[in-house]
């Protein structure tokens, strides 16, 4: 069974469009995250959610909005996509705090 699954795997879209990436975890973890990995492989945290409450929002444009319908899901919605949004987006979950992260396999977003 896949612990952290995200869809789609690949997403190609044009500038200005709105898109969503879905994430689900079956580990029973309390905290879920979204990370962005740029072309240089640098992983930067975007959001984390703990019991449906946003904990971190690290200078992320408000075009990005996380939505958590329940503890097992954290979706990422992006409005008015820009070229610079092209990257690989990873969903992750953990028990919270400094506990190890379990990552999904990423969504490669390409904005043309």
């Amino acid at each position: 069974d896949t612990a952290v699954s995200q869809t789609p795997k690949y997403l190609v879209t044009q500038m200005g469009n709105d898109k969503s990436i879905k994430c689900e975890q079956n580990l029973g973890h309390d905290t879920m995250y979204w990370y962005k990995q740029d072309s240089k492989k640098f992983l930067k945290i975007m959001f984390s959610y703990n019991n449906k409450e946003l904990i971190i929002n690290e200078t992320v444009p408000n075009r990005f909005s996380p939505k958590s319908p329940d503890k097992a899901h954290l979706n990422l919605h992006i409005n008015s996509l820009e070229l610079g949004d092209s990257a690989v987006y990873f969903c992750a979950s953990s028990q919270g705090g400094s506990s190890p992260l379990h990552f999904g396999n990423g969504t490669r977003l390409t904005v043309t």
Partner: protein
Amino acid sequence: TQLLEQSPQFLSIQEGENLTVYCNSSSVFSSLQWYRQEPGEGPVLLVTVVTGGEVKKLKRLTFQFGDARKDSSLHITAAQPGDTGLYLCAGASWNNNAGNMLTFGGGTRLMVKP
């Protein structure tokens, strides 16, 4: 902002060679994690080190946490092509807004040629 610098950024070696990857910071971390990421997949945890000076071994991989808990190293003995991947260190620290959080280093891309 906590910063973690990894070196080298890229490393290409022949099968059977030894190598060391470094993870350095000017900040103190409560613990440090090492992950490996393969193409098309997410990072996977290798080990967590918690105590200053701690050494952990995972088969041919040896991880060490610096005495001051500001740095860490990963040593691979007799590297194999299966060790190829992106190695990431992540330090745990306290943030006033977010509580405990992880900061990732920039990664070391390792290629082991047969």
